[in-house]
């Protein structure tokens, strides 16, 4: 089971990384979402997977049984899911308003904050390149 989960997490990581390296902003967004799933799986895997042994102390005893499932990773994942949900929601809105403000979702064309846009030679050249694709 651990092996399966690790392979799944690894596959998600590589898929997310591939998507992040794309030029389209929407694909980058999906890549980040996939990456956050991958991290959640990794966190889930970070303690031993023990089925059917809840971390409860039975009546009359002072310590938990010798074998029990570690509850901490679940708590971590829950927090991580909530956070990534909030951030994803913000990112979706940002992507939308980017498209509204700039009219493009190709990040190669978003260079105005790095190369000042007055140097119009660069931008027309890049746009030509973009339209050819």
């Amino acid at each position, binding site marked *: 089971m651990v092996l399966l989960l690790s392979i799944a997490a690894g596959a998600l990581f590589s898929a997310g990384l591939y998507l992040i390296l794309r030029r389209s902003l929407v694909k980058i967004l999906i890549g980040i979402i996939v990456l956050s799933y991958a991290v959640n799986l990794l966190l889930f895997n970070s*303690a031993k997977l023990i089925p059917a042994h809840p971390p409860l102390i039975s009546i009359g005893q002072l310590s938990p049984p010798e074998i029990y499932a570690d509850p901490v990773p679940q708590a971590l994942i829950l927090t991580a899911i909530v956070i990534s949900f909030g*951030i994803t929601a913000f990112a979706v809105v940002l992507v939308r308003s980017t498209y509204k403000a700039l009219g493009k979702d190709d990040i190669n064309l*978003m260079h*105005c*904050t790095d190369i000042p846009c007055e140097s119009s030679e660069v931008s027309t050249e890049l746009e030509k390149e973009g339209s050819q694709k």
Partner: protein
Amino acid sequence: MIALPILLPLFFGILSILFWKSLKTQKLLSILGTISILTSTIYILLFVKENGIQAIQIGNWIPPFGISLVVDLFSAIMLVIAAIVAFSIACYSQKGIDANRGKFGFYPLFFLLLMGVNGAFITGDLFNLYVWFEVMLMASFVLIALGSERPQIEGAVKYVVLNMLSSTLFLIATGLTYNLVGTLNMADLSINLSKVPMQSQVTLIAVLFLIAFSIKSAAFPLFFWLPASYHTPPVTVTALFSGLLTKVGVYTLIRVFTLLFITDIQYTHLIILVISAFTMSVGVLGAAAQTDFRRLLSFHIISQIGYLLWGLGMYTQQSLAASIYFMVHVILAKTALFYVAGIVNHIQGSFDLKKLGNLYSSRIGISIIFLIPALSLAGLPPLSGFFAKLALIIAAFKTNQYAMIIVGLLVSFMTLYSMTKVWNEVFWKEKKYENDTKDDTPVSHWMLAPTILLVSIMVVYGFFTEPMMEIALQASAQLMNPGEYIQAVFGGTP
């Protein structure tokens, strides 16, 4: 008591959301709030200096099972300087933030950002640190995009994507740490990481943390998001970010690499040293090529981050003390410089160095409050920047790093060069382009007062180097000896 720097911003943040409709009340609250935060942090600093490291356990769980909040001297210093910057931002924003941005929640976000920053300084738990980082990032994401101007949106995209990636890496490293050691309490980790049988795994995780925090603190070669985004929002927001955000990254680097990952110093700290050399030089070379006031200053942030990491890379008591001293100096100088950029923009209506000029003859006072932090940043005596660099170089001589000393001095010289460039372009040269702005535009006291405040604190800080250095040395002694930290968390029974 030590939870106050988290609770107060939360309280004032909620309060300013309640007064959403009334911008006036929010502005008043921002000043009241930052003053109360400043008072509480100064009290904490004095208390910690007297009584040693303080720790509390959230929900009264016995450590290491619950979340601990720990304040040592280094955290306390960072809390105070963050509160000073916050107070000055609150003043500057009275006029520096337009009504549109104010109406859409600048002040609540400002307080939430402050809460995240303070939380990151105080927490003693690795996962909790992640949560505070996210609180801080979430607020900063909205702040950088607030206003939705074209360049702002573009900068925000770059900022958001790279910072999310860094958070992901941070979370991966945290998960792997839990897998390896089975705890996330930093004091407990400090004890148990050295007991891990396969030390190469610890080093691997250390490098993952290094990458994650290097993105946050904009170190070479992971700094590209910073000059692409920091100059797009209004100057108030940029000053806030430059004063606090990247410094939180450096703070966590110092915390993590003095408390947790000290098992393989020859490897990890050598990497930090090399990174610092490149960060310093690439940052300043980038700055030399800029013609936009804010972009130039953004590149200087990167260059100064290099100096801070240099002190960590040497890993001696003196070098860490120099880093701490440098941190306070650079936060004051940098924020003041951004304020001046905002004032210059207010007077002449541009950030482009080519379009500015001739301010010295018309506004001599503003020229002087630019010159002092600029020279201090370059490291001229008797200002604080000189003593900060001197302390670093003395520490480097003691560890025989002559190559680093040469790099450090050259970068210092280049900083002076690019500051003279700004001085020539903005203050001395005749204005080449005529525009319709008048040089005698009145500047609001709300913009001048915080700038003068920061500059004078910096000058006083430089004059009282001896006692300040004493505190920094005390703080770095605590950093070099994790036993004290561990004892404070576990209450005498480690």
